[in-house]
């Protein structure tokens, strides 16, 4: 556990010292605000709600999260520090978990930094029609789960490649596919058996309940399972360097 913490602290320091992460955060926040106030223009629409953001945020996370994760393993691979890491008395899962937790802090922090948005909206809402804070909390929980799932997928992809750009593109594509595979318009054209599997597999189908204000244990376990499975795959990929 101590080793996990050591890796976590090292990675977090690495993030704080990396100018790229500030650029990614800045782009993420600008895009998030633009979605609400320029693309949708909620003031013109008149509804004091976060629904437009919760609807569009997975797409913004799709751009941001693979960028955070791309360097996790690909960089170590490229500059050769992975070999050094492998020689240390650290188990593979400790390294994978430490890196994941450090980047999770960045992803969660990015989402938390959008909180002024609901605060502004709540303060601008009419007293007679107060905002639904419970639904917003649930929506944010859904965003965090989506972000963490994207992160686990992107980390697994990062472990498979030596090139950060390749890791980013494949990571973002994988997240995109896994999110939109459950789109009803896509499922409609699939055979029934495949449609029922894809309908369950897609991230969008499971984040929908959160953004409506429902915490469903099935969605919660889906996200936990996805994260666990992706981290498990990452551990196996990292471990494979020992016998490849």
């Amino acid at each position, binding site marked *: 556990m101590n080793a996990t913490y050591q890796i976590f602290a090292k990675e977090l320091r690495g993030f704080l010292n990396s100018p790229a992460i500030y650029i990614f*955060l800045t782009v993420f926040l600008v895009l998030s605000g633009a979605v609400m*106030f320029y693309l949708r223009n909620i003031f013109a629409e008149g509804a004091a709600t976060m629904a437009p953001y919760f609807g569009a945020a997975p797409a913004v996370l799709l751009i941001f999260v693979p960028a955070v994760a791309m360097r996790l393993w690909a960089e170590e691979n490229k500059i050769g520090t992975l070999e050094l890491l492998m020689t240390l008395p650290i188990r593979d899962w400790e390294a994978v978990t430490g890196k994941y937790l450090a980047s999770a802090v960045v992803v969660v922090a990015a989402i938390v930094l959008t909180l002024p948005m609901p605060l502004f909206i709540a303060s601008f809402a*009419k007293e007679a029609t107060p905002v639904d804070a419970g639904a917003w909390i649930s929506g944010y929980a859904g965003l965090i789960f989506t972000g963490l799932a994207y992160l686990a997928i992107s980390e697994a992809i990062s472990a498979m490649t030596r090139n950060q750009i390749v890791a980013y593109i494949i990571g973002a594509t994988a997240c995109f596919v896994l999110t939109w595979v459950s789109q009803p318009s896509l499922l409609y054209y699939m055979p029934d058996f495949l449609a029922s599997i894809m309908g369950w597999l897609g991230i969008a189908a499971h984040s*929908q309940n959160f953004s409506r204000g429902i915490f469903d244990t099935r969605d919660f376990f889906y996200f936990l399972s996805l994260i666990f499975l992706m981290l498990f795959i990452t551990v196996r990929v990292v471990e494979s360097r020992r*016998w490849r």
Partner: protein
Amino acid sequence: MMSHRKNLKWMSLGSIVIATVIVAALNLLLANNYRRIDLTRDQIYTISPELQNIISGLKDKATLTFYASQKLPPQYVSAERFVEDNLRELAEKSDGKIIVKLEKIGTDADDESRLAKFGINRLPVGIIERDQQSITNIYFHIRVQYGPRFHVINMPDESGFEYQLAHAITKVTAKTRPRIVFVQNDPRFDFLDTIGSLLGQMGLKDIYEVISLKVEEDYPLVIPARTELLVLGKPIDFRVQELFEIDQYLMSGGQVLVFAQPTDFQNPLLMFEQDHKDWRYNFYEVLDGYGLRIRPELVEDYGSALPIPVGGEGNQAARLPSPILPIIHADRFTSETAILRDTARLLLPMAAPMEFLPVSKAPEFYAEYLMHTTEQTALQVAPEFNLGLSPDSEPPADAELASHPVAAILAGPMRSFFAGKPQPDALKIESTRSEYQVLQRQAEGFVFERRDVAEPGARVTVIGSGMMYSGTMLGNLRRLDPYLYGEQASFLANILESTTVGSDLLSIRRKQITTPVFREDLTDSQRSFARFANTFGVALLIAIGGIGRFFWRKGHLKSLRRRYVK
């Protein structure tokens, strides 16, 4: 060596497959053992105690069968999960009184003929297929079965799901339906037809026994026994015996709803072509006696610059020039009375202002204005209405702009209009219809005992617009603004439910997603600030933080180098 590597490779791949299978199996297991926590403020996705209350009153078990097509169009996929989840939750909370069955219907002809026996047929829905809009027919129905009685909910939807269920359960389990009597005594008015079709569309006829009475020369008003609500649509002069009938119905604890009309014309554009009669019909004097005066003016709203089409022929469609129609917004509803719930705005064509008269000081006497117009309304006095206004009209120079009450409620020990007066002679019944009603009332053992003070439960609700539910107005309203039409319909349903079926169904119906709106007093600079702060403000702070961190680190490394590198 190669063999060991190969083994490791297969072990690694194998472990991934096993982990995937375990995870999938766990998820499958949890799919049937799940919990949903509704975090919304009003618990809008949770089966409410009111519905549980209705269910707890069931003597036998009710079976709810959800039929859904095997292949549903995209827009129904999440609705299907929503319906299934809610039905399961309902079954769990019903103490065994609700049995839920889920049936997927494919293309089997036997299934189709089996369902057709219940009146369940595929319904057409639009889909987009290969960039083309097309129609597909699907099953998406719930059958509520209680003994031999059943009710089918077609296309249950998320927003009104619980109400649809409660409505269906109430319908199949009700022993008697509350009786609502709609009365119209103006032969030129289409109140009854419109109300009838509106109630039908809303499915309210299943819950209420609706009786329409057209009072004419040969057919005097006889209020049926067990009437829970008497609705008077744009009443004109009644016979004195009919006034006595209404008065005594109220005094016996009855409830009366009046859609009052301030002017005597159907189409306001034609008003100048008609003889203008003094509109103060005798029923308004009765209202005076109870303590509410309908004033003779017309409320004209300069805040609603919305031209409303009011009919006409072909492309000669007449448009009612605005500002004339007060559109009452929720912030002008002055009461939390149930009838205003879920109603954000209402259109009151040709609205009449009203005022309370000091007639009763009894502490139980209750009088309240239900809604006021905006501050941008002026009054015009009949018969000098000036309707030649356009949407950009300015109020007349001498017009006093102010808010006016346009709906009110009176309840409690009202004094009879006929108190201290001799009882009118009984009306000579000549028509077979009225005779039949009198006989029926006698058969049900129902007689009005003359009372001078109202019994508890007596209530008069007056809405200052008789055209509110006219066919022309509703028809045009639906074309012009379906949302506003929906609000008018909700308002009517609220009145009926608040006076008849009790609080459960009403509470369920008002449980829906209410969209919060922004304050009207927000300035441009406040909006711009919010836009900028949220889009660029926090981002800018992060960028500055990053640059600061970069320079701090550069300096820090420099000092380390100075200290350790010679």
